[in-house]
């Protein structure tokens, strides 16, 4: 696959995006179907998945749309539900700003799943990093849009019981945690993230824990910088996230 340079980047990007495909198509279908039930046909699903592109928020949006929520309430809900995305860009600042025309798209399309796949992908040096990163982001959104439109058009025709298929997203994140755990010399960041999320989940409940939890993790990580960054010199570039070729 590495031999043919022109198409190999696209093929490689496609291969990396496959773990997201199933989940995005089926969650997209669920969204399209829900929107259809609320009286909005598939073109609405297409438009929303194209310009919003935010999984859980789009499900909340169905309620906001059918209930005619106020714009202020809509904005607050969005900041609350998607707020966690504020932390994702930190790993890609230097990479994205060199991406030229697709820079804005790369920032726009940084969902949980795209972030996760981009974090774990170690692009072989012979490949065009920009093409691969753009490819992964773009394929993922294509799955999401395709699912949404199928759901809006023909969701009722699907008789296959897909209950539980959303677990594929959980499985993706679990597999990546395992992978990162094996690759990194310091497990401190993973342990901090895990403990803080459990702590705030217990304290604030399922709907309110993620922002305080991530914010606390960031503060603890910054406070622990001297300890972690010292080790980092030895394990430089191991994470593959900020590895400069």
């Amino acid at each position, binding site marked *: 696959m590495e031999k043919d340079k022109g198409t190999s980047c696209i093929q490689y990007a496609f291969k990396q995006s496959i773990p997201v495909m199933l989940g995005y198509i089926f969650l997209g279908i669920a969204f399209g179907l829900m929107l259809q039930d609320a*009286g909005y046909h598939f073109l*609405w699903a297409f*438009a*929303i998945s194209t*310009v*919003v592109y*935010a999984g859980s*928020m789009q499900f909340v949006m169905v309620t906001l*749309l059918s209930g005619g929520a106020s714009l202020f309430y*809509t*904005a607050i809900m*969005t900041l609350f539900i*998607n707020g*966690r*995305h*504020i*932390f*994702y*860009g*930190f*790993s*890609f*600042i230097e990479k994205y700003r060199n991406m030229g025309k697709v820079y804005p798209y790369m*920032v*726009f399309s940084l969902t*949980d799943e795209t972030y996760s796949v981009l*974090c*774990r992908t170690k692009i072989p040096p012979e490949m065009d990093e920009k093409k691969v990163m753009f490819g992964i982001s773009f394929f993922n959104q294509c799955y999401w849009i395709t699912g949404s439109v199928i759901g809006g058009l023909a969701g009722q025709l699907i008789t296959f019981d897909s209950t*539980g*298929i959303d*677990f*594929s*997203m*959980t*499985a*993706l*994140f*679990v*597999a*990546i*945690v395992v*992978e*990162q755990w094996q690759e990194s010399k*310091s497990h401190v*960041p*993973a*342990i901090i*993230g895990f403990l803080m999320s459990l702590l705030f*989940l217990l304290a604030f409940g*399922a709907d309110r824990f*993620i922002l305080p*939890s991530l914010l606390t993790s*960031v503060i603890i*990580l*910054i406070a622990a*910088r001297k300890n*972690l960054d010292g080790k*980092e010199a030895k394990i430089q570039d191991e*994470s593959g*996230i900020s590895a400069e070729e």
Partner: protein
Amino acid sequence: MNIMHSIAIIAVVSVCTILIRAVPFLMFGGSRQVPGTIHYLGKFLPEAIMATLVVYCLRNVRIMEGTHGLPELISVVLVAILHLWKKNILISVGLGTICYMVLIQMIFT
């Protein structure tokens, strides 16, 4: 359904989501040198975020009621074992998802 209001809602969600995702780039994405702390966070934060996302996905599991979170626990453990063993993300995600679907559709009904 009020079409104009619906479009306005979509626009608001779209703009807010884009702004949220753009914050780090608006703050540090210019030609300026990225501060050391931010560089450091970029390296170490992903592991904390991935662990948080796992908890986020499982946030609605009720340990004291219903299935006691057993389908989730079994499937998560299976994914972890498969991934330690085969190191193939498609196998881990694929079999883990099938396991979960079988458990909640046929066994823990």
